[in-house]
């Protein structure tokens, strides 16, 4: 397998081409590719969109129903990759090693999300790729109008859907 596999996210706002870093984030990359190949992301939405911060998706379908995932993975945030603008990182719960399918694209240099120490507070968020084409699409998504839906805040009022995610050979 290539150490820099590419994944195309076809969204209803346009195409985003992502390059993954299998050398620095092997487990996270393999995990993401598993979900892509299964078609897990097809029909999921960007459900948390915060301009100047990040856009998060890959876990909910258009009805804001959370999808069943595989087991959580180990946090690879100590790999030296930084949460800079247009990088791709894994979302998780407060537990550092709880990432499953949800990911986010940083839309600012979010230094405070980087690994600082192997402690619950210092683990940070594992970066495993970056947007190489379609940053304009990311820019269009980040300014989407948002509101509250149930327990969720910052949900786009109009669905931003990943129609299809495919591995680019």
């Amino acid at each position, binding site marked *: 397998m290539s150490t820099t596999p590419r994944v195309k996210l076809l969204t209803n706002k346009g195409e985003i081409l992502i390059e993954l870093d299998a050398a620095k984030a092997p487990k996270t990359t393999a995990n993401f590719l598993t979900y892509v190949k299964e078609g897990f992301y097809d029909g999921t939405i960007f459900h948390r969109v*915060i*301009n100047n*911060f990040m856009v998060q998706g890959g876990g909910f379908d258009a009805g804001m129903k959370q999808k069943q995932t595989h087991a959580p993975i180990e946090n690879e945030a100590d790999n030296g990759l930084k949460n800079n603008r247009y990088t791709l*990182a894994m979302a998780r719960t407060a537990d550092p090693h709880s990432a499953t399918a949800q990911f*986010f694209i940083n839309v600012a240099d979010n230094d*405070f999300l980087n690994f600082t120490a192997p402690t*619950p*507070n210092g683990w940070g968020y594992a970066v495993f790729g970056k947007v190489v084409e379609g940053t304009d699409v990311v820019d269009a998504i980040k*300014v989407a109008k948002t*509101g509250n839906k149930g327990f969720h805040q910052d949900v786009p009022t109009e669905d931003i859907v990943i129609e299809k995610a495919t591995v680019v050979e």
Partner: protein
Amino acid sequence: MSNDITLAGVVWVASDIHLGPDTPETARAFHQFLDQARMQANALILCGDIFDAWIGDDFALRDPPGWLACSLDKLKRVSAGIPLWIGRGNRDFLMGERLMALTGASLLPEPACLHTDAGKILLTHGDEYCTADAGYQRFRRIVRRPCVQRLFLALSLKLRRGIADWARRRSMASNRYKAAHIMDVDPAAIEQAFARHGARTLVHGHTHRPAVHSLTVNGTACTRIVLPDWDYEHQPARGGWLVIGADGPRLVQASKSS
């Protein structure tokens, strides 16, 4: 009331914590922040929207719910150690002298003109600069009138809560259709503020767009610092504050409370 406040040493400034009954993680992070401020800062300023809603000081004084009681207690502990200022935001503009007395805080003047080790800094919540939002500015003018506030505070808590919920739902519904630039500060209003107060640094919250902006006003280099909002209920979480010391203001953002 004079708008000038002279502060020596390290000053911490935060805003837009939006505490409420459904924000336990944000409250936890905020309480840790208050403990940290008490140890590390020489003064703390909270400039607006500390609470997601405020329907009158009597609500806090008379049998406050657990989450609020805990926050009030933490604020008291801060003011026992260092000077504490609390400013009004667009959500908690009904905070008044009774709350200040209870927490040992001083009410922050609007705008506040801070004389710090990093020079003169103008500080406000920031909603007054969103002048493109005519509907909101009209609402603001009305609810800031003392007679309107007296009338509202004379109502029962239940009625006040009902009106507050209604106002919030209306605001959320109308914000849905407002363009992003209308919800942000107006460049002309910012330039006027710099010019009127002769400050080179302006700090505000409200817009939830944390950043450090460099701009030129009448040929002078100025800095506008936007404070982050807090949300620790969702991951990645975010929040933060401004540290003002002799080496200038520095924005601290945190995904985890330390």
